């Protein structure tokens, strides 16, 4: 039961303090769940990203579901998701009810001029840290970065890329297996 509460607190904190949308939350979740708490190892974390991006819905919510389920099944899912979405609801409602235009606040605007580029550095840094899981293979690392560049230049739906690369991967594995079997027969 304690873990269910911890999940709620963790995702509430992440939801409350991370600005810049879903992908900005990935590095924070990475630090809190993989590095600090060691709930999930870094390879499983990437598996989680594969799954989270294959499901509809905000990536932050999907990651919360994965972590919640892994740690405490359905109760974990509910508490992690509530933790993730409650801060948004509270903050947005506060703005909608009390300040019609929080945007006009000059101090906030100034702060964001520096926070936005910082978010970019953090997201790229998060991807950079994940390169550690590629077995130090230079070709895989280069492949990863070039996919990043290609996806930036061309607007392709992530789900299409994931499904396509899964299919290609399955075909290659099957072909290899068949090749091995044939090799054994002869």
């Amino acid at each position, binding site marked *: 039961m304690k873990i269910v509460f911890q999940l709620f607190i963790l995702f509430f904190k992440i939801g409350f303090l991370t600005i810049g949308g879903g992908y900005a939350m990935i590095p924070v979740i990475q630090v809190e769940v993989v590095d600090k708490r060691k709930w999930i190892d870094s390879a499983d974390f990437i598996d989680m990203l594969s799954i989270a991006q294959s499901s509809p819905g905000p990536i932050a919510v999907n990651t919360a579901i994965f972590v919640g389920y892994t740690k405490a099944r359905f109760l974990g899912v509910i508490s992690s998701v509530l933790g993730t979405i409650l801060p948004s609801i509270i903050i947005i409602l506060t703005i909608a009810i009390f300040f019609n235009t929080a945007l006009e606040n000059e101090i906030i605007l100034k702060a964001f001029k520096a926070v936005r*580029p910082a978010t970019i550095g953090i997201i790229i840094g998060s991807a950079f840290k994940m390169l550690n899981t590629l077995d130090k293979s230079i070709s895989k690392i280069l492949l990863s970065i070039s996919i990043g560049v290609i996806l930036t230049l061309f607007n392709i739906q992530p789900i299409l890329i994931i499904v396509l690369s899964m299919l290609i991967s399955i075909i290659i594995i099957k072909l290899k297996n068949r090749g091995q079997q044939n090799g054994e027969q002869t």
Partner: protein
Amino acid sequence: MNILLTIFLAFLKIGTFSFGGGYAILPQIQYEVVDVHFWITLSKFTDIIAISQITPGPISLNAATYIGFDLIFNTTSSIYFGIFGALLATFSVVIFPLVFMTNLTRLYSKNKDNELLRKVLKNIRPVIIGLVFAAGFGLFNDKNIIDIYSIFIVIISFILFTKYKLNPIVISFIFAIIGILVY
């Protein structure tokens, strides 16, 4: 009553087809609330997106909460009904992903030791990491990179995060203060 059902269905649809998260969902929301239902104008929608971007939390959820409130508040003039509208829109967005993702996770943890699944997930790792890179690279636009200092900030925050292992939340706060002082 009718409007509540319409909101539920519209945001359920948005949540169900929102592959790719965040920015990928925004055109879907725009299509439903601006083009199909005429609930808000395009300029109001742009304002809502701007607010969603500078507030914590997933952008699509922030937008759903705001639009849900705005819609019901404008038709009933009651803050309480408005809050209900916000909750309704937000839960409608997450309900389908919640069911879908929970089942995907369950499938994954059941078949985690399946050799084919493990191989496939391992093989597509470079692609998934590429998607995260793309999320970062995609933010290089004239809204986020406004001058030469922006480039320095990108590099410094990258180093603070990867080399000095500073918590992203701490990095954001440091730069928020720097932004207030410098700009």
